[in-house]
């Protein structure tokens, strides 16, 4: 099954650290918001209202046109039972759909396996950044992890063309599958082969791209640009992933300034990305998911907020039915879960919607169960 340019593509932007939903999608008229956030609150007159109860953080202004156009969906109060407040554990849960035990297979690793079971395209999934997020990991599934798109390649330190060619030949034979050397060895072999193939193809992407959109300077913004480059190059990539710098959203302290900068950065890069795709007529088959591993505590700690639960996820795309999904969690004390915002829908339902309604896959084996879907994809 070869991919055509119009096959649905999923882009995921991970906000690591736990984005504070109360200050992102602000319940500006709720007196409990004012009471609980004496020090870490968006003043009512700065909020960009979207209805009479909720409004955007002012730094989300660049995204307002997308919201007004109906291209932006917000899934409120998303989480899972027994919320975990450890970054690593909670992010792993979002990556592996396994709240109760440690798992090594990521939902997108499985999705890539289902999208390309015969491994016809080693670039079906591409991650931008160092290391591979667990969401993309699954045994036997190649995922290119690109730290720098411009310089990606194997044995580039052997400068002489002929010698390099010879060495690459030997390399490809060394790394072709062998039997009985153990799982780590096999893992290395697989990575070597995939690197070789992927490198040659990825090298063509920057040359094919030119754009009037100027992205921000942050590393994540540049990775979003790389994602646009690879998507526009038509390499058949279906899943593209990147992460806002590790744990940057973990605003235990000085949240007012830190969070403002983060929201500005993310809002700008999403707007730029979408504009870039539109410029290349390549937006119709793209869905962007922006998620975080948990929300933050209802009451601030004096200068920031500690780990909580019940956050929100955002979706952007031409085929998104814009609007609010799920319910905004109540701030009333008796409605909280262990003192934190109570989730009202399961993230695995969010994933199931994307997997089935957007990527056309069977969600149940990927998310380990049947979860209620939402209706944010236009048919």
């Amino acid at each position: 099954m070869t991919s055509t340019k119009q096959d649905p593509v999923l882009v995921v932007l991970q906000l690591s650290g736990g984005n504070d939903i109360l200050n992102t999608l602000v319940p500006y008229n709720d007196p409990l918001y004012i009471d609980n956030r004496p020090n870490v609150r968006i003043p009512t007159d700065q909020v960009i209202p979207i209805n009479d109860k909720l409004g955007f953080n002012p730094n989300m202004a660049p995204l307002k046109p997308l919201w007004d156009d109906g291209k932006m969906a917000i899934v409120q109060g998303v989480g899972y039972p027994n919320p975990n407040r450890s970054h690593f554990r909670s992010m792993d849960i979002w990556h592996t759909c396994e709240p109760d035990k440690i798992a090594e297979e990521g939902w997108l690793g499985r999705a890539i396996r289902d999208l390309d079971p015969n491994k016809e395209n080693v670039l079906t999934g591409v991650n931008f950044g160092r290391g591979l997020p667990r969401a993309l990991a699954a045994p036997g599934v190649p995922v290119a992890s690109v730290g720098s798109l411009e310089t990606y390649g194997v044995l580039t330190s052997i400068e002489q063309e002929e010698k390099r060619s010879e060495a690459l030949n030997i390399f490809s034979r060394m790394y072709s599958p062998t039997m009985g050397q153990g799982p780590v060895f096999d893992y290395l072999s697989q990575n070597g082969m995939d690197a070789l193939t992927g490198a040659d193809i990825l090298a063509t992407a920057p040359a094919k791209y030119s754009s009037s959109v100027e992205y921000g300077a942050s590393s994540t913004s540049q990775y979003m640009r790389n994602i646009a480059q690879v998507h526009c190059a038509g390499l058949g990539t279906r899943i593209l992933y990147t992460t806002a710098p590790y744990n940057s959203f973990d605003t235990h302290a000085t949240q007012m300034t830190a969070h403002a900068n983060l929201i500005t950065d993310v809002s700008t890069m999403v707007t730029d990305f979408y504009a870039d795709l539109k410029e290349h007529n390549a937006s119709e088959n793209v869905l962007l998911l922006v998620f975080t591993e948990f929300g933050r505590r209802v009451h601030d700690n004096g200068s920031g907020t500690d780990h909580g639960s019940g956050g929100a996820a955002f979706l952007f795309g031409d085929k998104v039915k814009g609007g609010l999904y799920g319910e905004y969690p109540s701030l009333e004390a008796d409605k909280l879960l262990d003192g934190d915002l109570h989730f009202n829908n399961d993230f695995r339902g969010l994933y199931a919607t994307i997997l089935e309604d957007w990527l056309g896959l069977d969600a149940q084996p990927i998310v380990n169960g049947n979860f209620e879907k939402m209706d944010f994809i236009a048919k």
Partner: protein
Amino acid sequence: MAENDIQLMAHLMRRAGFGASYEELERRAAKGYEETVEELLHPEDQPDVTMDVMRRYMHGWRDMNSVMSNQAYWTYRMVNSSRQLEEKLCLLWHGIFCVGDSKCMAANQILIQLNNFRKDGMGSFENLLMGLSKDPAMLYYLDNQLSHKEAVNENWGRELLELFSMGVGMDEHPNYSEDDVKSCAEAFTGWTIGNAIPRYPYGRYNNSFLYNQYDHSDENKTFLGESGNFNGDDIVKIIAKQPATARFIARHLYNYFVADEPQVPAWQTTPPRDPEAIRILENAYFDSGYEIRSMLRILFNSDFFKNARFTKVKSPAEVVIGTLRLRGDFTYPKPRIYDPALEIRYMGQDLLNPPTVEGWHTGKEWIDSGTLVERVNYTSGEMGDIDSPGIRSIIDRIAEKGDSISAEELLNGCLEMLGGYSLTEETRELLLDNAGKDGGISTKSDDFGELVGQTLQLIVSTQEYQFT
């Protein structure tokens, strides 16, 4: 002496340090294995790295304010220190007791912490934890200076338990509850940072620990089943005596020095691959009064260590420093020490700046198609430089075998000089083919050095070479 002795010594030096040249291995094997272990365990008996000449050239190393200077400095130390285990342990503790410069923005402060790891890293674990609780970089990284009696910040309290001492759970049971986290955090309120002398006009000064009794929660707390008006040092004492702490530290030492285990979050539910070895280390923890040196002495002298050959995937630091030590590079002030320091970062290990307080994912998780390419590209590039002293002496050593040698002898010679690696049959065939395609190899010819260099380049590109 026996081939085996040298290979065993290569194994020890790769694990307890960053590898060694063949000549150094011969010297150490002649001295004796147990004697070498003792030498490693007593860094204070070895001379420290001589820094005065380096500082003359590296002006930025006077103040050590930047993370780049620190990474370059640490690279230089790892290459040149005769206190190899001290540096290796410093790296271990840094990977467990994580602070990141991306938040601290005070690399000079992190260096103080690293120097404490060098000084106290082999001593009592309780002492290490106590020092950590008063370390300004750590307090700042985990927001404890913002933890107040009236508004407790749980960040330090949580990570101390989750990542620095006991871990979330053991043998499928949790080690502590959310209430314990709250009590722990309360006990550390008031443990804060004193202001440094302002930066202008004389430059950056360091912060210091400050105990603010007026901001300390002076109440009864219940922690791990004990009750009392606990302060931070009481908490550390209680933690140090927990079986969970012994287990956690034993597993970390095993994972770092013996064989790759699953990642730390899995430890609550995944048993150790060698429970007997862990038990031995746990006993050593308690018998010695929590002393890391005693645990390591038992570890390095054990069969489970000696037999654990190539059971670990090299960390980026091991890849880069190991390569530099083999090449005999950067043993004196030379420009561009920053280049290998950056390579360690590109391979996924940003020294003084781990991605999160959890540290780096190690073992097989160092590798993905991206980092594998970095490793292969870097090491093959380095091995191609046949004029470097280390490679020169490898070439000369192999040439000693005779005026004309076979492809077998060439390949085996290279593998021996690199530290006793072995390759799969298939890979051997490929490399023999490449080396011996023209029949008997003349060691006197001008091309001999190049041929050795090429063979080394191919060996370091193999899967086998990613292991230590």
